[in-house]
């Protein structure tokens, strides 16, 4: 159970199929796991979403 003062932030993890470079960003509508999103900025390979998950932010 999420605690009352917990804020869950959703993140999307992208990974290049070729160079395995990873990028973590905030989830945006339309994202789903294994979706091809863009070309890799380093090697021009295909970047796809490998994970979508929630992380807890506890307010100070």
């Amino acid at each position, binding site marked *: 159970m999420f605690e009352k003062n917990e804020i869950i932030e959703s993140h999307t993890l992208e990974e290049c199929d070729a160079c395995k470079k990873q990028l973590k960003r905030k989830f945006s509508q339309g994202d789903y796991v*294994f979706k091809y999103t863009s070309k890799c900025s380093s090697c021009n390979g295909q970047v796809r979403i490998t994970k979508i998950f929630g992380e807890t932010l506890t307010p100070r």
Partner: protein
Amino acid sequence: MDFSDFDVLDEFFSTGDSSNPIMMLVWILPLILFVFYGQRIQLIITSGDIKKKLAKLDQYRNDSRDDLIQYIKKNLTPKGDPVEKIDRFFDYFTIMPVDIDPNGIVPKIHRLVRSREDTTRKQVKSLFTEIDAMEITKIQTLLEIVTTLQLFHKIVRHLFLTAKKQNNYPLILPLQMMLPFIMEQADALRDAVPVLQQGQPIGDGIGPLVVGEMMLDTKKQKAEFETVYGESEFKGRKLILLKAEGPYATVGRPGEATEFLVSKFKPNIIIMIDAALKFEGEESGTIAQGFGAAIGGIGTDRFKIEEIATKYDIPVFSIVIKQSVSDAITLMKKKIADQTDNIKNQVHEMITDNTSANQSVLVIGVGNTVGVSQ
């Protein structure tokens, strides 16, 4: 004057002397009160707590209903005002088949569940001028959530009002004991609404996530309605990989799909990967291996898998990922998502330990595949 042995309590109430009539009243009155009215006093105290929880359940039901209607009006194209029809969905009920039937009631339950799903899907479809498969599955799941919250509210209210009406304290006891469990599920269902609206993966989707990754470079074929499979190879073994069709909010039809694939490929072993409820004290995301069909639901899919495995004498192995009710139906937590590689390694280990080269394995990712493709 010496007041050293003056005891105020003793002077006025004669605590040392049991013959004082005031003292007798002080002791006897509460006794009489508790003997005759004890249960009513307890009923009043307990009622306050239950009333607060009942109000919370009512709020959850109303909020999730309003969220669903808002979502439909904002994101989809309903034919006219859908509110009346949607409100009718929440009161749908299912009458279970007679359980004294010696011929077995599983096929009857299976037919009943499938016909309910099919009818709801058709009715959801008929509400809109245009709607895609993803949105249909999302609306169907959200309808189930609101219906469940409504049912929780109705049952708790019924038991509470019956106990109050009859001034029957023992009747309220089971409700008081069950309420924390009901509230845990209700909290989780309420938290699941925004996650499903956005089509994000939930904790229950860890099985489809692992199998979806194993299916990535394979040709996806339809095994059953909203259920797909792919063929792959690992260390000389043929792998048949099965999961619900993502990224839809569906669990697919694993029972029928397994029957189809077992008849077609005759695998040597079946491995099932699913989320399982953790015990209190256990860490979320813990992995455990075991035997037998790891699949939840009403039981008809498990029955079908057990039947076909028994018919062809196929051992069934399971890998479960422990999580709480809340973790299972809300946004997948990082510590669960991070277990993907670990689970995949355990699946591979299970395959090499229990089969030899040229044999085949059916790997099933069980669970709701919302937000997880393949």
